[in-house]
């Protein structure tokens, strides 16, 4: 289990994160922090899929979009509460992933990848064209503020704490799943699907579980985004958005939980620093990916070793892991 030092680090980081809004008086940087939280959820959930079972989902933005529109439509038309919509948006996104999974997960990985790519665009185009439901290109404005015990949560500070809690819950649950029988099955599938099946792992079912769990969080992120910005349109869910999330995972390093957190943070801050180059966002991301592939293919946070660090700290490690490189990102 976590050593004392680790616990101390967690504890101090938690304090720092909780105090953050009180140090930062600047609303702009608070919004950046909120966006970092949002992208941590998106990148981490994509990493659960791409980094842990080795499926290559390119269309994460599609599930994010479904979550956002589910929340926006149900909140503006039927006055569903934010707190109900958080899980509900996740569930709706996950339902779509089941359809995709049932259709493609028995096939070679490339079919899954292409389908997610196409799916993401189809969702965006549907949103654009199904005006009676989504108001089409006009987007959905006026998404109400979340309420808690009769109070409106209006300030960025409130949203900061909400996204902090969501991120914390997401990472906590992910960590727990990853270091259980389910997570081991996922990683085994990534490492060698034939061998996993020979061990009795129902690979199809576990890939589906994995997809459901990952896309659920994309839907939750979509709901948060809708309420945070109070206006959504299809423009926020282009393939570019999907590629950005993918870039965060690749730059941070997939197959471990901290990588996408670092990737999301750095790639959210980077364009803010170079604000006058905002239209170059994807170019910056592309360059970042290339530099990473060249210098550090396993990503900023290094590679994936499941539980060896956590479970048996007493056993001497004989040869330090010298794994260079993740399994390649082939679909």
């Amino acid at each position: 289990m976590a050593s004392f030092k680790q616990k101390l680090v967690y504890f101090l980081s938690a304090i720092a994160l909780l105090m953050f809004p009180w140090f930062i008086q600047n609303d702009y940087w608070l919004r950046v922090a909120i966006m970092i939280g949002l992208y941590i959820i998106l990148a981490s959930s994509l990493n659960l899929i791409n980094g842990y079972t080795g499926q290559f989902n390119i269309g994460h933005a599609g599930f994010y979009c479904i979550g956002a529109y589910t929340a926006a439509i149900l909140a503006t038309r039927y006055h569903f509460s934010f707190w109900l919509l958080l899980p509900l948006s996740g569930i709706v996104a996950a339902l779509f992933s089941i359809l995709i999974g049932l259709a493609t997960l028995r096939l070679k990985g490339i079919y899954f990848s292409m389908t997610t790519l196409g799916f993401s665009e189809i969702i965006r185009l549907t949103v654009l064209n199904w005006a009676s439901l989504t108001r089409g290109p006009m987007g959905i404005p006026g998404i109400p503020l979340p309420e808690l015990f009769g109070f409106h949560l209006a300030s960025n500070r409130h949203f900061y704490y909400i996204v902090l809690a969501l991120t914390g819950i997401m990472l906590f649950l992910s960590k727990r799943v990853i270091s259980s029988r389910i997570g081991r099955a996922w990683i085994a599938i990534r490492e060698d699907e034939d061998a996993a099946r020979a061990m009795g792992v129902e690979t199809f079912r576990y890939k589906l579980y994995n997809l459901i769990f990952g896309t659920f969080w994309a839907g939750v992120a979509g709901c948060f985004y809708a309420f945070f910005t109070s206006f959504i349109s299809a423009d926020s869910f282009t393939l570019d958005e999907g590629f950005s999330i993918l870039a965060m995972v690749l730059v941070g390093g997939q197959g471990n939980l901290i990588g996408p957190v670092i990737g999301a943070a750095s790639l959210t801050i980077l364009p803010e620093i170079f604000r006058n180059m905002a239209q170059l966002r994807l170019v910056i991301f592309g360059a970042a990916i290339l530099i990473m592939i060249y210098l550090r293919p396993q990503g900023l946070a290094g590679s994936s070793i499941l539980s060896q660090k956590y479970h048996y700290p007493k056993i001497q490690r004989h040869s330090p892991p010298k794994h260079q490189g993740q399994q390649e990102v082939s679909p």
Partner: protein
Amino acid sequence: MTAILQTANLSKSFGGLHAVEAVNLEVERGHIHGIIGPNGAGKTTLFNLLTGTYTPSRGEIYFNGLSITRLSPERIARLGIARTFQNIKLFKYMSVLDNVKIGFHTQTETSFWDAFFHTSRFHRDERIAAQKGFEILTRVGLAKHADDLASNLPYGTQRKLEIARALATQPQLLLLDEPAAGMNPAETAELIDFIRKLNQEGLTIIIIEHDMKLIMNLCHRITVIHHGEKIFEGTPVEVQNHPGVIEAYLGKGRLNPSAV
């Protein structure tokens, strides 16, 4: 005679190539059964058929009298057939212990709920996987490597880990595909002892191997395969004296006849 495994007319073709052709195999419970034959004879393909990795073109497979012909690999694993792979297929970027823990997948049942909230079932399952996994590693002499990455082990040791991982599934029947390949003589001798011990504990084993000393030493019966067909079956002594077997090998120029 009580057969644990039987095949009837088992065949597999790839395009025009008959990799396995009308093989009738009968493996008796409690035996160590050898499969030999020159390179490309169809031995590994036979294993892939028995474990559901390939679907047969024709024929049937019975395990404990029940047809498993069209079952998925994971179903067959659950029924009690475990295997190792000729081209090692370890979970490379997992620790040695985690590799073995996967073997307990079918014997544990942690759900998402259990994992989220660390229920008693989660703790029980983790305890099973860790303790029994460690026991198995200790048996094969890999306990000191428990925390190493599987890919960092030497080649011969990786083969041992493959066996350990297969044993973790608690099989009734173990299929070993060239387990001694890449092992030095000392390791091979150790392997022979270990396989014999497993067998004495009641495990039925089918073993593919080119190392004739190992095969002749261990096996109760041997099936000889050539061009996908079973050309002979008998005891080690019978196999060694059968002219067709020597010819099959000589034809390939692979083995020194004196070694057969």
